[in-house]
C-alpha cells in the first residue's frame, strides 16, 4: 500500500505536484521558524548563563576568614560607556594565588594589567588612548574568552589592582568564589555581606524572555499553520474524487487513511529537511540580530539532541495525525462526497470566546493588576490568547453574517454567486483570510501598546544640544549607596576640571553643588527629585539645560538629570535659591554636566578624563545615552514586532494566494460551464474578488476593533495610562496590507482566465 501511496503522491500529475511543493514549502517554513524559536530560547538561556559570573559579589559569602587553601578576591563591578555602548568594568585584586579566577581568563590580572573582551580590545587598539584606553590603568594582558562573554559584541574589561587599592573602597566586596549560576534577576540586598548592585548590562529575565519568544513563535507559527492547512486543502475536491473512486473498487477506509497519511508524511519529511536546511543556513545571520539587545554567538543558537529528535519525529507524526483528522471531517463514500450535506451554518455562540477574552481583560481594569510580574503574565496572557482564539472561532460566523447581508443586497449575478458561496461555506472563506486577520490584530495590539508605552518612557523630545550633555554624578545615588560603607563625601575641589574645559568641542560646564536637603519639582505634575545648586552664570552658557529666573544668581538643579521627565529640559526655568554664588565652591560638587558639540571625540575625551578621575564611580553618560538606555527595551520590542508583523503578513499573503488558487482549481468546471453559458470573465472576477474581500473587510474591522480594545484594556490596567493612538504609519501599514490582498487577488485573474476556458468543460 505504501508504494502505491508514494506513487500517487509524487506522480499524481501537475496539480498533485503543485500541492506537494506548496505543502513542503509551508512545512519547511514552519519547521525553520520553529527551530529558530527553539534555538533562540536556548541562546537566551546560554547568554544568561555566560553572564552569571558578573553577578559575583551578590552571592552569600561565608563570614570569617576563607577556608584553608583559599584566598579572597576583592571584587568591584561598575559600568562604563563608549560611543553609546555599555562597557562592563570589573576591578579585582587577588589576595593570594588561590584567589578565585573569573571565567575566560587563565589567571587574575595583577596590578597594572587588564584583560578585555575581543570587541573592547579592538576598540582599545583602534581608538586614541585619550578617548578610551586612558581610563584603564596598565596594559592589556590578554583577551577574555567566549566562555565569559554573553555576546560577541560584549564590551567587558577586568582590571587588576593591589588589595590595598581596592580594599575598603565603596562598592567593593571580598569573594571566595565566582558566581556560576545566573540569579534570574536582581534582589535588593540579596547578600547582606555583599554587593546590592548587579552588572551594568543585565541579561533579560530568562522566564520573561522565554514567554516573549514563545508569544513571538506563536504569532509567527499560527499563520504558518494556517498556510499548511490551506495548502492541504489544495485540489481537495479532486483528491476526494480520487479517494471515492478507490473506495468504489474496494479500498477500505484504513487504506484511504494510509494514502492520506503517506502524502502528508512525505510533505512533512520534505518540509522538515528544508526547514532544517533553512535553519542551519540562516543560523549565523539570525545570531547576529540583537533580539536581546546584543547579538548571539552562532554557537549559542544551537539545538540539543532532544530538540532535534523532538522536531524530526514530531512533525511527520503531527502531519500524519492531522491528515487522519482532516479525513474524519469528510465522509468519503464510494459514491464520492457529493452526498455530503451542506456544512451546518456557524452559530452565534462563536462570539463567546471573543467576548470572554475582552471581559477577562476588562476584569483587571476594574479590579487592578496583579502585584507580581508572574501574576500579570498569568492575568493578561490568557485574555489576549482568548481574543486571538475568539477571532478565529468567530470569523466564520462574521463571514456568514456579512455574506447574508450581501446576498440580500446583491443586484448583480457576481455578487449573488459570491454571497451564496460564502454563506454556504463560510469556514473555507474565512480560512483564506484568517492569517491576514491575525496579522492585523497582532499589529494593532503591538503598535497601540508600543505607542502608549513610548508615552510613559523618558521623553525623547530633548534637543540635540541637550542630548549631547555629558552628565556625571560624583557621589553615589540610589542603589549605589548601599555597600556596607559610608558614601564618600562630595569632592570640594575638582582640579581636573580645567582639563575638561580645555577639550576641543566642550562648550560649557555646569557644576551641581551639594545641598543634602534640597528637592525640587521640575514638572508641576511630576515627582520631587533630589537637587543641588548651580551657578546661574554657568547655566547661562549652557542654554540646553534650562535657565535661571531673571536676576537670580543661584538656582536649584537636579543631581541626576535622568530623573527629569518634564519634556524638553532647555525650556525649564529652575527655581532660584537664596544662596550667594561665591559660597558654592565650598559645598563640594555632587554632579557635573559637560556640554559638548556632540562629536564623539569630544564626548569620549571628556568621559575619559572624568572616568580616570573617579574610576570606581559610575561613569558619566550623555543625556542622549540615558534616553537610549531607558528606551532600549521598547526599541527591542519594536524591532521584534516588526519582524513578527512582516513575517506573518508575508505568510498570510501566501495563504491567501494558495487559497484562491485552490478555490479556482476546485471550481474550474462550474466556472467554465458558466463561461460556456455566456457569463463574462468580469463577472467571474467579481465573484473571486468578493469571495475574499467581503470576509476580509468584515472580520478585519472586528479584528482591528478587538486589537484596540485589548490594547486599551491592557494599557489601562498594566501601564495605568490611557491608550495613545498610533501614528500615521499604522494606518498606512493597514491600508498597505489590504491593498496587498487586492493585488494578490488580482494576481489570480490570469489563472481564472486560463482554467475557465471552454476546453475545461470537456470530460476529464
Amino acid at each position, binding site marked *: *500500500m505504501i*508504494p*502505491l501511496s508514494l*506513487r*500517487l503522491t509524487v*506522480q*499524481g*500529475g501537475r496539480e*498533485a505536484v503543485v500541492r506537494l511543493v506548496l505543502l513542503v514549502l509551508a512545512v519547511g517554513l514552519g519547521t525553520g521558524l520553529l527551530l529558530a524559536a527553539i534555538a533562540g530560547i536556548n541562546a537566551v538561556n546560554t547568554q544568561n548563563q555566560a553572564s552569571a559570573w558578573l553577578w559575583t559579589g551578590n552571592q552569600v559569602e561565608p563570614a570569617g576568614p576563607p577556608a584553608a587553601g583559599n584566598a579572597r578576591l576583592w571584587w568591584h563591578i561598575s559600568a562604563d560607556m563608549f560611543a553609546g555602548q555599555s562597557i562592563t568594568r570589573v576591578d579585582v585584586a587577588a589576595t593570594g594565588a588561590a584567589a578565585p579566577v573569573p571565567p575566560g581568563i587563565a589567571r587574575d590580572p595583577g596590578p597594572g594589567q587588564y584583560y578585555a573582551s575581543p570587541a573592547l580590545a579592538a576598540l582599545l587598539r583602534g581608538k586614541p588612548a585619550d578617548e578610551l584606553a586612558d581610563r584603564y590603568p596598565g596594559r592589556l594582558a590578554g583577551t577574555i574568552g567566549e566562555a565569559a562573554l554573553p555576546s560577541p559584541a560584549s564590551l567587558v574589561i577586568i582590571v587588576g589592582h593591589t588589595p590595598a587599592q581596592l580594599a575598603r573602597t565603596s562598592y567593593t566586596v571580598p569573594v571566595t568564589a565566582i558566581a556560576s549560576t545566573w540569579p534570574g534577576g536582581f534582589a535588593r540586598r540579596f547578600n547582606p555581606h555583599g554587593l546590592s548592585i548587579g552588572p551594568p548590562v543585565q541579561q533579560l529575565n530568562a522566564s520573561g524572555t522565554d514567554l516573549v519568544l514563545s508569544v513571538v513563535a506563536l504569532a509567527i507559527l499560527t499563520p504558518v499553520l494556517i498556510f499548511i492547512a490551506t495548502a492541504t486543502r489544495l485540489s481537495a475536491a*479532486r483528491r476526494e*474524487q*480520487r479517494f*471515492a*473512486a*478507490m*473506495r*468504489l*473498487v*474496494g*479500498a*477500505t*477506509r*484504513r*487504506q484511504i487513511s494510509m494514502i492520506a497519511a503517506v502524502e502528508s508524511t512525505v510533505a512533512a519529511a520534505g518540509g522538515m529537511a528544508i526547514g532544517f536546511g533553512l535553519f542551519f543556513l540562516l543560523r549565523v545571520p539570525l545570531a547576529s540580530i540583537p533580539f536581546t539587545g546584543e547579538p548571539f554567538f552562532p554557537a549559542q543558537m544551537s539545538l540539543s539532541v532532544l530538540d532535534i529528535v523532538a522536531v524530526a519525529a514530531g512533525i511527520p507524526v503531527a502531519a500524519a495525525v492531522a491528515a487522519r483528522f482532516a479525513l474524519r471531517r469528510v465522509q468519503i*463514500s*464510494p*459514491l*464520492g462526497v457529493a*452526498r455530503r*450535506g451542506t456544512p451546518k451554518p456557524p452559530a452565534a455562540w462563536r462570539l463567546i470566546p471573543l467576548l470572554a477574552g475582552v471581559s477577562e481583560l476588562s476584569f483587571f481594569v476594574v479590579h487592578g493588576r496583579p502585584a507580581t510580574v508572574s501574576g500579570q503574565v498569568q492575568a493578561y496572557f490568557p485574555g489576549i490568547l482568548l481574543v486571538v482564539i475568539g477571532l478565529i472561532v468567530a470569523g466564520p460566523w462574521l463571514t456568514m453574517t456579512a455574506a447574508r447581508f450581501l446576498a440580500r443586497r446583491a443586484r448583480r449575478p457576481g455578487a449573488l454567486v459570491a454571497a451564496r458561496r460564502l454563506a454556504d461555506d463560510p469556514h473555507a472563506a474565512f480560512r483564506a483570510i484568517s492569517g491576514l486577520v491575525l496579522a492585523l490584530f497582532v499589529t494593532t495590539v503591538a503598535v497601540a501598546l508600543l505607542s502608549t508605552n513610548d508615552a510613559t518612557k523618558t521623553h525623547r523630545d530633548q534637543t540635540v544640544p541637550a542630548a549631547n550633555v555629558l552628565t556625571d554624578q560624583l557621589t553615589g545615588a540610589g542603589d549605589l549607596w548601599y555597600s556596607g560603607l559610608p558614601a564618600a563625601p562630595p569632592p570640594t575641589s575638582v582640579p581636573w576640571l580645567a582639563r575638561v574645559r580645555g577639550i576641543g568641542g566642550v562648550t560649557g560646564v555646569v557644576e551641581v553643588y551639594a545641598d543634602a536637603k534640597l528637592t525640587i519639582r521640575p514638572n508641576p505634575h511630576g515627582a520631587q527629585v533630589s537637587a543641588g545648586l548651580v551657578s546661574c552664570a554657568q547655566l547661562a552658557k549652557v542654554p540646553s539645560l534650562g535657565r535661571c529666573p531673571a536676576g537670580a544668581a543661584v538656582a536649584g538643579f537636579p543631581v541626576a538629570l535622568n530623573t527629569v521627565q518634564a519634556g524638553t529640559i532647555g525650556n525649564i526655568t529652575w527655581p532660584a535659591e537664596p544662596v550667594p554664588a561665591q559660597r558654592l565652591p565650598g559645598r563640594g560638587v555632587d554632579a557635573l554636566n559637560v556640554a559638548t558639540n556632540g562629536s564623539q571625540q569630544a564626548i569620549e575625551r571628556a568621559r575619559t578624563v572624568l572616568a580616570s578621575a573617579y574610576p570606581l564611580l559610575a561613569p558619566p553618560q550623555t543625556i542622549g545615552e540615558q534616553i537610549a538606555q531607558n528606551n532600549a527595551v521598547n526599541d527591542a520590542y519594536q524591532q521584534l514586532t516588526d519582524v513578527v508583523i512582516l513575517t506573518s503578513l508575508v505568510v498570510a499573503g501566501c495563504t491567501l494566494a494558495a487559497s484562491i488558487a485552490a478555490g479556482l482549481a476546485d471550481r474550474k468546471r462550474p466556472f467554465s460551464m458558466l463561461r460556456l453559458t455566456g457569463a463574462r470573465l468580469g463577472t467571474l472576477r467579481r465573484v473571486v474578488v468578493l469571495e475574499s474581500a467581503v470576509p476580509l473587510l468584515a472580520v478585519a474591522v472586528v479584528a482591528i476593533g478587538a486589537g484596540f480594545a485589548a490594547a486599551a484594556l491592557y494599557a489601562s490596567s498594566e501601564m495605568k495610562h490611557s491608550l495613545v493612538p498610533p501614528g500615521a504609519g499604522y494606518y498606512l501599514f493597514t491600508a498597505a496590507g489590504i491593498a496587498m490582498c487586492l493585488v494578490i487577488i488580482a494576481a489570480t485573474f490570469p489563472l481564472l482566465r486560463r482554467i475557465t476556458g471552454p476546453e475545461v468543460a470537456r*470530460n*476529464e
Partner: protein
Amino acid sequence: MTILQAKDVVKSFGQTPALRGASMTVRQGEILAVMGPSGSGKSTLLHCLAGILVPDEGEIWFDGQRLDTTTDEHRSELRRDRFGFVFQTGQLVPELTAEENAALPLLLGGARRAPAIAEARAWFGRLGLDGLEQRRSGELSGGQAQRLALARGLVTGPQVLFADEPTGSLDSVSGEIVMNLLTAAVREQGTTVVLVTHDARVAAYADREIIVRDGTVSTLTGVQP
C-alpha cells in the same frame, strides 16, 4: 441459483425516499437490466445491492451472506474481490496511468505491482485498448475511459459486475462497442451483471429486465424477480 437478493429494501436521503420496499433477486450468470425513469430509485437499488449504501430497512443477501449488516471493511473487501463496477463517469483515478487504473483492485488487494499490471494488460487487448497503457484518464476518449473502467471491473474475475448507465455519456456507436465487449466478456467468464439503464437498446443486451418505479420494483419482464 440466486446470487443476490433484496428484500423489502427501504432507503431515504433525508426526507426524500428513494426506495420504498423494493424486492428482487439476481440469478448467477444472468445479465439483469434494471430500468425505470429518472429518480425512480434504480441507481439506489444498485448501490444497496453492491454494499455501497446500507438500506434503512430490509435485507440484502449475497451468495448466502447478509450484506446490509456486515462491516464497512467487509463490504470494501467484497467490492474489491468479488464485485466489479462500471459507472457512467468519475470512476477512474486521474493520477494513475490507464494500466495502473485497471490493476488498482489487485493492488488494493495486496498484489505486487508487476504481476498486477501484467494481469491488467491482458484485458487491454481484449477490450481494444492496446497502446493506451501509459495514458492518464484525461487523455482518453469517453468510450476508451468506459472500456478501461470495464477492464478494471473485470480484472479480479468478479462474481457480479454492477454497471450503472455504462453508456450514458457515450454516443450510440461507442455505447454499442462497450456493451458488446461487456456482454462478451461476462458471458465468457460467467459473471453475473446488474445493469442499470433507461435505454431500451442497452437493456436489450440483458437476459431479463425489471422496472423500478417510485422506489419499488413494479414491473417484470421475462421470468419472475
